[in-house]
C-alpha cells in the first residue's frame, strides 16, 4: 500500500511542479539550518581524530586556593603545579592515563620558529606536554615515536611535529626524524611526525608537541602556594564508573590535604575532573552546569528554527488539500476511512520532506566546507580568528557520520509531522457530499 502511495506521490510531484519546488525549498532551508547547528555540535562532541576517546576523557583546568583569616584573606585561582602532579595526579589509581599540559605564556603563545633559510620567523602553536598525551589521544605516527619519560625528566629539546609543519620546514614528511630545527633560538630534534589534528579539535591541536621540561622553571609553583601552578590535567578512564571513582578519589585527596594543614592554603577543585560533554557547555569550571536550562535553550532554538518553516508549509498544504477534496470525497464514498486517507497524505508529504531534507543536507555541507574558517565558532561567544598559515581541516568523518544522517532523517520526520498533520486532519473532516460537489 505504501508503495502505491509513494508512486502516486511521485506523480503528484511531477504534476504540481510549483508547489513541490516551493515545498522542497522551504524544507531544505529549515533542514540546512538545523543540520549546520547539529554538525557544529557534532564536531565538538563526537569522537573525531585524534580525540577518539571523548566519552572517556575528563579535564581538570582550574583550581582555587585560599588562606588566611578575615582581614588578611588571600584567594588565588589558576591550575596546578608540578608538585601537585607528582603527589596527587600522576599516581592516581582510577585512571588509565594522566597527562598534563603546561600553559606557560611565553612558550605556548609566543613561540617562533627560525627557519634555516632566514626567510623570517614565523609563529607556531606549541603544546607543552608529557608522553601520556599520546596515550590519551590516538595520533597516527607517520614516522618515529613520541618522546619518552626519560626525555621528559632530562629536559632534552625534542619535539613531535605534524606533517604540515614537516612539509613547511623540510619539504617532506619522510626521513625527517632526527633532523633539527630552531625554535625560540634553541635547537630541537624531531623525534616523531604525526598526522595533524584538525584546528577544530582544540584540546589536542598544536603544530608541535614538546616536553614541558624545556621550560626552565616548570617545577616552580606560583604565587607562593605550593600546589598552584600552570598545569592543566587530562585523564583517560575506562568508563563512566571509573570517572566517578576518579572524582571521588580527588575529593579524598583534597579533604586530606585541607584537614592536614588547616592554617595553610585550602584547595578546592569544585566538581572537576569534568567529562567532555559537560566541559563543552560549561562556561566556568566553578559554576555547576544547569543541565535543564541548557536543554531548554536548545529545544527552544530547535523549535524556532523548525516552527516558522512549518507554518509556511502548513499554509501551502492547506491550500493544496482544498484542491484535492473531490479526490478525497470519491475515496471516502468507496469506503476509505479517515485514517487511511490521512496516512496517504502524510506519506506523500514525507516524500517531499525527504527530498527537501537531502537538499538541505547538501546545502549544509557546502556551507560548512566553504565557511569552515568561521562557521564552527559562530555559536561561541568569543572566537579566535584562525591564525595565518593554519589550514582548518574538516575531515570526512566530521561531515559524513552516520549519526548526522540519522539526525537529518529525524528532523525531516519531525518537520513533516509539524507541518502536515493539522491541515490534513482538518480538511478530511468535510462530509463526502460537499467534497464531491466542490468544483475546484
Amino acid at each position: 500500500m505504501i508503495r502505491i502511495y509513494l508512486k502516486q506521490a511521485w506523480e503528484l510531484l511531477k504534476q504540481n511542479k510549483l508547489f513541490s519546488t516551493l515545498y522542497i525549498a522551504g524544507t531544505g532551508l529549515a533542514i540546512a539550518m538545523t543540520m549546520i547547528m547539529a554538525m557544529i555540535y557534532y564536531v565538538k562532541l563526537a569522537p573525531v581524530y585524534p580525540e577518539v576517546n571523548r566519552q572517556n576523557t575528563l579535564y581538570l583546568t582550574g583550581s582555587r586556593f585560599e588562606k588566611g583569616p578575615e582581614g588578611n584573606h588571600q584567594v588565588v585561582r589558576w591550575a596546578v603545579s608540578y608538585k601537585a602532579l607528582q603527589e596527587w595526579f600522576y599516581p592516581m589509581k582510577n585512571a588509565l592515563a594522566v597527562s598534563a599540559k603546561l600553559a606557560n605564556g611565553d612558550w605556548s603563545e609566543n613561540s617562533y620558529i627560525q627557519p634555516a633559510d632566514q626567510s623570517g620567523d614565523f609563529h607556531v602553536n606549541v603544546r607543552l606536554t608529557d608522553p601520556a598525551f599520546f596515550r590519551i589521544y590516538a595520533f597516527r605516527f607517520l614516522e618515529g615515536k613520541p618522546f619518552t619519560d626519560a626525555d621528559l625528566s632530562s629536559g632534552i629539546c625534542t619535539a613531535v611535529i605534524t606533517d604540515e609543519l614537516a612539509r613547511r620546514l623540510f619539504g617532506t614528511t619522510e626521513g625527517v626524524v632526527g633532523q633539527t630545527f630552531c625554535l625560540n633560538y634553541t635547537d630541537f630534534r624531531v623525534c616523531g611526525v604525526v598526522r595533524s589534528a584538525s584546528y577544530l579539535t582544540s584540546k589536542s591541536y598544536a603544530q608541535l608537541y614538546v616536553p614541558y621540561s624545556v621550560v626552565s622553571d616548570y617545577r616552580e609553583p606560583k604565587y607562593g602556594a605550593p600546589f598552584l601552578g600552570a598545569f592543566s590535567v587530562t585523564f583517560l578512564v575506562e568508563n563512566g564508573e571509573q570517572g566517578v571513582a576518579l572524582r571521588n578519589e580527588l575529593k579524598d585527596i583534597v579533604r586530606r590535604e585541607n584537614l592536614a594543614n588547616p592554617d595553610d592554603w585550602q584547595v578546592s577543585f569544585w566538581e572537576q575532573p569534568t567529562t567532555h560533554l559537560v566541559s563543552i557547555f560549561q562556561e566556568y569550571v566553578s559554576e555547576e552546569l544547569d543541565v535543564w536550562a541548557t536543554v531548554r535553550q536548545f529545544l527552544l532554538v530547535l523549535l524556532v528554527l523548525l516552527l516558522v518553516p512549518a507554518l509556511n508549509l502548513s499554509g501551502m498544504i492547506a491550500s493544496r488539500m482544498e484542491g484535492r477534496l473531490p479526490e478525497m470525497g470519491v475515496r471516502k464514498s468507496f469506503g476509505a476511512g479517515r485514517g487511511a486517507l490521512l496516512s496517504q497524505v502524510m506519506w506523500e508529504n514525507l516524500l517531499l520532506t525527504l527530498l527537501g531534507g537531502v537538499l538541505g543536507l547538501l546545502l549544509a555541507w557546502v556551507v560548512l566546507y566553504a565557511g569552515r574558517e568561521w562557521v564552527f565558532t559562530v555559536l561561541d561567544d568569543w572566537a579566535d580568528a584562525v591564525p595565518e598559515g593554519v589550514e582548518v581541516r574538516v575531515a570526512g568523518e566530521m561531515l559524513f557520520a552516520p549519526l548526522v544522517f540519522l539526525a537529518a532523517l529525524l528532523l525531516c520526520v519531525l518537520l513533516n509531522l509539524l507541518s502536515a498533520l493539522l491541515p490534513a486532519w482538518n480538511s478530511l473532516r468535510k462530509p463526502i457530499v460537499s467534497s464531491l460537489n466542490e468544483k475546484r
Partner: protein
Amino acid sequence: MLKLILKNLWARRRRNGWLLAELVLVSIISWVVLDPVIVVTHDRNIPLGYDADRLCLVSLGALQPNAQGYDPAAQDSAVLLDSYFNLVRHAADFEGVEATAPVLGFCYPNSPQGNSNTQLIAEGDSVKVTIMQMYFMPHTRFFEAYGFKEGEGRTLRQLSDLNYGPNDIVLTENAAERLFHTGNAVGRRCHTSGRGSDTTFYQVAGTIGTIKAYSFWRPVPVVFRPISSPREYLPDDARILIRLKEGVSMQRFLHEFRPWMVKELRRGNLFARTVLSYEKLIEEHENYESTPIYRRNLAMALFFLINLCLGVAGTFWLQTRPRREEIGVMLSFGATPGHIVRLLMGEGAVLTFIASLTGFLIYLQYALKEGLSMSMSLCWMENTDNYWVSDFTLHFLIVSCIILLILLLVVLAGIYIPARSISRIPPTEALRDE
C-alpha cells in the same frame, strides 16, 4: 483601491490568518535579531578619527642569550633604547614610508592586548569622568604619524614637539568637552580621584580630534600621557608605527617591506619580527569580539526572511486558481493587468503593515523592560556625543522603520511574480470556469 484591498483580505481571512501570524512572528524575531546588527553597523561606521588605511604596525623581538648573533653588551639599557630608536629611524628610510613613530606599551588605539582606564575630575568640579589612557613618546611625531585630527589650542606638530612634564596630558575633544565644557582646554587642570591627601594635578597641554578607541565602540574620552621610562617596555611591548605615503598600495608595500624588514631591520639584539597593516589588526580584533554575533544574527535574519518570502509566494501563488473568476470579472470590466498587480501587492503591503505594527508593539513591551541593544563600549564606559542609537525613542522608531522596510521588500518580492502571472489570465478563460 484600499477599500477593495481590505474587503479582499477580510474575505479570505482564514488563509490570510496564517500569513498574518507568520508575519507577526517574523517581525518580532527580526527585531530581536537585527537590532544588534544595526547598532554594530552604525557604530562601526562612525569615523575612526585617524587614518587607519595607511598605517601598519611592526612588532619586535629580541635575541635570546643562546641565539646566534647575540651581543651581551647590547643588553645594556641605554644601548637597547638606542637600538630601538635607530630601528624607528631606519624604517623611515624605506621607500613609500612617509613617517614612523615608536608605539610603546599595550595602550594604543585599537590595541588587542587590552586597555587601561582611569577617572578624571576637572579642577573645581566634582563629576568623575571615566577616561581611557594611552601613552606616547614626545618628540617622535607620534600624533602626526597616527594622523589624528587637530584640536583647538595647539597644532599636532606643536603637541609632538612640546617638552612635557610628567603631569602634562593631551585630551581628545570629547574628553575636553566632558571635563571642561569647552573644546579649548589648554592650561586647564584636572586630577584623579585618588585617596590620600596629595592630589596630583594634570595640566592639559592640548587637544586632538575625537577618536574611537576601538573600531566597533563609539567614541569615548581618551587621554594621552607621555612616557617617562621607555626602557621597561622593550622589547615585547615596543612597536613601530609606519605611515605610508599617499597613493602607495598597502598590499604591495607589505609584500616588498617584509623581506627587507627581516634582513635589514635589526640593531643590537633587537629585530623586527612581524608587520601587520592596521586594517588587518582591526579586522582580527573585531573577529574576536563583535563579528561572531554579527554573522550569527545576519544568518538568522536571512533564514527567517527567506522563509517569509517563500511563505508569501506560496500563499499567493496557490490562490491563483481560486481567484481566477474574480480577476476575470475585473479584467472584463476594464482593469489593466498593472492594476491587478498593484491590487495584490497592496494586499501584501497592508498585511505587512498590520502584522508589523502588532509585532512592534509586542516587542516594545519587552524593550521597555529590558532595554534596547547597546553598543559594546557601553559595557565599560559612557560614550560622549549623542547618537540616535542611545536615545530610546529615536532608536526604537528608526529600527522599526528599517525592519518594516525590509519586511515590505521581502513580501512584495514574494508577491510580484505570482501577481504577474495572475494578472495575465485572459478574461474569457477565467470566466469560462464559472
